[in-house]
């Protein structure tokens, strides 16, 4: 087993190349710039194109152009940059173009700061752009997952003809951990829909416009069916010590690492705590939340996020009042300490 000690952001660059991505269009923004810098360094070595666009808008539309021809392509940015990309993201979803977008999120709203926040959940998972679309959203919590989920993102994007987001945050992007890289991917799905500037694909059209109300409705229904299949087949999560848990801590991305430590600490004190971490934010792991809700030993869910409470809504939708769902969030780029989390859990234990 060979491992590299590498930053999450750099793991994204290597894994994208190993996944066969040869086209990166980006715009610098902290704390995601390393992905652009790493790509600038490495893409030319394997015959790829790295291009620094004039803006986030330029970058996402370059992705739209490249994706139209069926090649694997990507962009990376951070929260305010992602806001700018939203127009393009809606078009990509409407035209059903596969691509990978990495969001190394930071503090907001507005310029906010560059510290790790998770305030992008709503704009990424609930759709910051217009229209009835969904993105496939993967939330890594380690440098290894920055690699694995980036590779998976390319596969899912191709499989479903859908833009796919790797939603990380400043901490995971900046953190170094041992990463084991898989072998390069050498076979890719055929994309018969793509415009490849060839006779065979001449009749193909990439578009998101449909003036006729009925036909646009049919297109939308088709999209919803696709999303339903994704919800059925692509759910990923991690349940840590949940089966006998009376309390389930829930969080995605970096916060789940803290929750894991908290579980270990509280278990050592004899408290039956578990941690449930959605890895796919869309599709949201509804069934497993439902499964634990139905368990008699479960007293409550405690959701922790680095935002004002965004994913907690999805947990509540599933739990639907059957068990209490408590929320604790930090904002501005602050991470809670383990003590703080334990204090919060103990407080809620006394309540229920």
């Amino acid at each position, binding site marked *: 087993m060979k491992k590299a000690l590498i930053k999450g952001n750099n793991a994204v660059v290597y894994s994208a190349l190993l996944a066969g991505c040869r086209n990166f269009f980006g715009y610098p923004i902290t704390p995601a710039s390393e992905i652009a810098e790493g790509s600038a360094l490495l893409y030319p070595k394997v015959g790829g194109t790295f291009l620094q666009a004039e803006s986030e*808008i330029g970058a996402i539309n370059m*992705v739209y152009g490249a994706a139209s021809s069926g090649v694997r392509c990507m962009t990376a940015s951070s929260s305010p940059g992602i806001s700018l990309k939203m127009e393009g993201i809606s078009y990509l979803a409407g035209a059903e173009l596969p691509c990978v977008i990495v969001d190394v999120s930071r503090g907001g709203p507005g310029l906010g700061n560059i*510290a790790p926040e998770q305030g992008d959940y709503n704009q990424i998972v609930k759709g910051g752009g217009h229209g009835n679309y969904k993105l496939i959203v993967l939330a890594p919590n380690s440098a290894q997952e920055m690699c694995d989920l980036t590779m998976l993102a390319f596969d899912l994007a191709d499989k479903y003809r859908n833009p796919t987001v790797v939603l990380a945050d400043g901490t995971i992007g900046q953190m170094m951990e041992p990463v084991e890289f898989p072998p390069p991917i050498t076979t890719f799905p055929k994309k018969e829909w793509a415009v490849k500037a060839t006779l065979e694909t001449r009749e193909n059209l990439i578009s998101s416009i449909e003036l006729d109300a009925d036909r646009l409705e049919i297109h939308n229904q088709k999209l919803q069916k696709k999303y339903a299949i994704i919800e059925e087949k692509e759910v990923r999560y991690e349940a840590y010590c949940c089966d006998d848990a009376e309390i389930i801590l829930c969080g995605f991305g970096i916060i789940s*690492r803290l929750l894991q430590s908290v579980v270990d600490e509280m278990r050592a004190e004899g408290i039956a705590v578990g941690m449930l971490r959605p890895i796919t934010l869309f599709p949201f792991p509804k069934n497993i939340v439902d499964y634990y809700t139905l368990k008699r030993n479960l007293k409550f869910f405690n959701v922790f996020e680095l935002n004002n409470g965004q994913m907690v809504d999805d947990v509540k939708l599933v739990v639907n009042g059957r068990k209490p769902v408590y929320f604790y969030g930090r904002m501005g780029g602050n991470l809670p300490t383990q003590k703080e989390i334990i204090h919060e859990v103990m407080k809620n234990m006394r309540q229920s």
Partner: protein
Amino acid sequence: MTRQHNILQKPSTFFDIFERKGVSEVKSTHYCPGCGHGILHKLIAEAIEDFGIQDKTVLISPVGCSVFAYYYFDTGNIQSAHGRAPAVGTGYKRANPHSIVISYQGDGDLAAIGANEIIQAANRGEAITVFFVNNAIYGMTGGQMAPTTLLNQTTTTTPYGRNKFHEGYPLRMSEIIATLEAPVYVERCMLTDAKNIAKTRNAVRKAIKAQMDQKGFSFVEVLSGCPTGWKMTPQEAKTWITTDLSTYFVPGVYKDDLETREPHEVKQENPPPEDYYHLLNINQTLKEEYVFPHVLKEPFLEEIKIAGFGGQGLLSLGYVIAALAMGHAYEVSWLPSYGPEMRGGTANCSVKISNSRIGSPLVTNPSTLIVMNKPSMKKFENAVINGGIIIYDSGLIDTPPSRQDVTAIGVPATEIADTLGNTKAANILLLGVYARLKKQFLDEQYIQTALPAILESKALRDVNIKAFNYGFTYSENMK
């Protein structure tokens, strides 16, 4: 190539029936009578046919009246967001250098909402061809002001006429594009009479040919009638182009470097996958797993905080510790403080080492604190756990820690490193001190072999090794 087209004959580049239009009227275009789009479409379609590039042509349609250009052109088609066609074209062409990319845009699309995209694509010299239809109005949305609307011209959003003090002046895009270095060919034409249509035909061909010959970015602006938006008859519209529009937007060739410009061929390498690790330099960052016989088996978690000024090599010290620990097959994490605080101010990083999966990568209460300046000592001293270790540069921090429940080791690391050859080796000297203290899970022999490979600076390698040994024996002597 010079074949004359019968005016009634349809170029093969057009579909026979415009099925994409929908169920009704699939034989006529959606454009208004007297609209310039139809003529320009035909000139482009003929050129594509004559050049024999129909299969490799990809037309990018904009948002505007020509949003439906794909109804007509039997080529690859991509419909893009308002103003973004040059960026879409850029992405497409970069990924498909063999293609011929044509961006077809109107004035609102190109000169207002997409002004940045067009300037930047032109300035990069993207190997695409842009046709810019300037009719001084927003036709599709019902006759609002365009960036090219003339002064005093009335539109639905300039009901009193365009006022230079309020809306500014009409934008001359050909002139702007021609000032840039990269574009190879820029011309403005108009679709008024046979003579000018012939000129436009010629410009269309030159611009497409420029791309075929790999000469870079070409741009043709076409003054085109919009009888509907202007509320004129087609004949009045033609006259107005001649008398008004073309006196502000003067037709002519604004740039023509076609003769002198060398073709630029884009070569894409395609190395075999076996070479990726090597090309990407992954091999060198990979470290073989080291099976150290004395790896600590009992569960342990070492939490290190390393802090001082930016530039003291503290983040690298953290990296080296983490890399050495990884070499022992431990789980590790390294997390820097990042952002502006690193520029000149204090810097710190957190390193965790364990023989089981690491939860939080943050270190709040370190078991080991390594500090190289006073403010950091002040900030972190009290956070160290009971029984923890504080290693500090006693040359830079004159007051030793006041904590009695920790092991404190002061070494004038920077001073000693200076005498060894370079102050920059101070961090590795402290690593030596640390490694000696953590013998229970760090193997000295392994460190001795692995360290030279892990140290990034080749120039400092020797002095760093000296510093490490000094630090290692320093604490040995102390014990």
